[in-house]
């Protein structure tokens, strides 16, 4: 395992997670959450859990993003708080 790569992905995961909480635009949140899922997928793959990485990539980064975007499209794009 290359530790520089690992560190860079870990920092990006934390940045994405904080971004999801802070951003007011819910569509942006959905995209950031997709990026978070994809980075987690990379982490799983680095740790050798390829099956989990595959599930994370297809469910987390793929289909759940579509569901979030659909929900945002049918409700509201701005958060109330």
């Amino acid at each position, binding site marked *: 395992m290359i530790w520089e790569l690992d560190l860079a992905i870990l920092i990006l995961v934390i940045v994405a997670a904080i971004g999801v909480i802070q951003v007011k635009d819910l569509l942006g949140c959905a995209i950031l959450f997709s990026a978070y899922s994809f980075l987690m997928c990379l982490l799983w793959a680095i740790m050798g859990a390829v099956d989990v990485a595959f599930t994370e990539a297809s469910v987390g980064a793929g289909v759940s993003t579509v569901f979030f975007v*659909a929900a945002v499209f049918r409700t509201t794009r701005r958060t109330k708080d």
Partner: protein
Amino acid sequence: MKAIGLIIVVLAGALLLYSTQDFPFWGDPASPAGTHTATYYLTKAFEETSVPNVVTAVLADYRGFDTMFETGVIFCAGLGCFVLLRLSRSRDEDSYYRHVATGITLHIKSAKIPDVSSEFERIDTLWTPYDLIVKTVCRLLAPFVQLFGLYVIAHGHHSPGGGFQGGVILGASVILIAISHNMRTAIGRISEKTIHILMAVGVLLYSGIGALCILLGGNFLDYASLSRILFTNEIEARSLGILGVEVGVGITVMAVMITIYNNLSSDGRLDEGL
């Protein structure tokens, strides 16, 4: 109120970080998880089930109950989404049609053009986007996505993958059609009734294989007893039992993904998607 929430979150996070000190190191062979059952699975899984991918063998054979109820959870999620969101009444009596050759939208108050018309296309709002390039590319892409999904389900014995991932990919291909064309096209390809039947068929296939094992004299989900009707030895029967179970999981997951998307993106009216 926000300050209290922040304090609680920081305290809980600090507690969690503190408790990670007691975790075994990553990849530690002497960790509790690695000393009891994991050694057995890693050494015996291939000779007992003839499945090279140990993850699949553990998920579908040794921990078959766990995966069966996971499939049940996904089935319930799809059912819950349907019950909460689906409306039986359409939006209004008005209907919109697009003249395919010119792109002109017709708004018709009471009369109806037959839905199967080569000159007119039923649309749901005054203006829906129409892009020939996006439609054509997505239509050409969908079969390959489906082929990859089937490969992931069928090849889960040898490579990463299995019913869950393959089912999601199969569902995503139908969602791709629904996004790039419109939801009427996707429902025309695979109707709501078919999706609901498939949702139940997958769970029934999984538990049916388990029940068949009881009828053949084994325990529930003991695939070795399937060797009497499959005319193979017990090891091959376990491998084939895992394949049957994975197909069941894939069918349920695919149907649930489609039904969640259909209901979520159209407010439960199943007319116009995103």
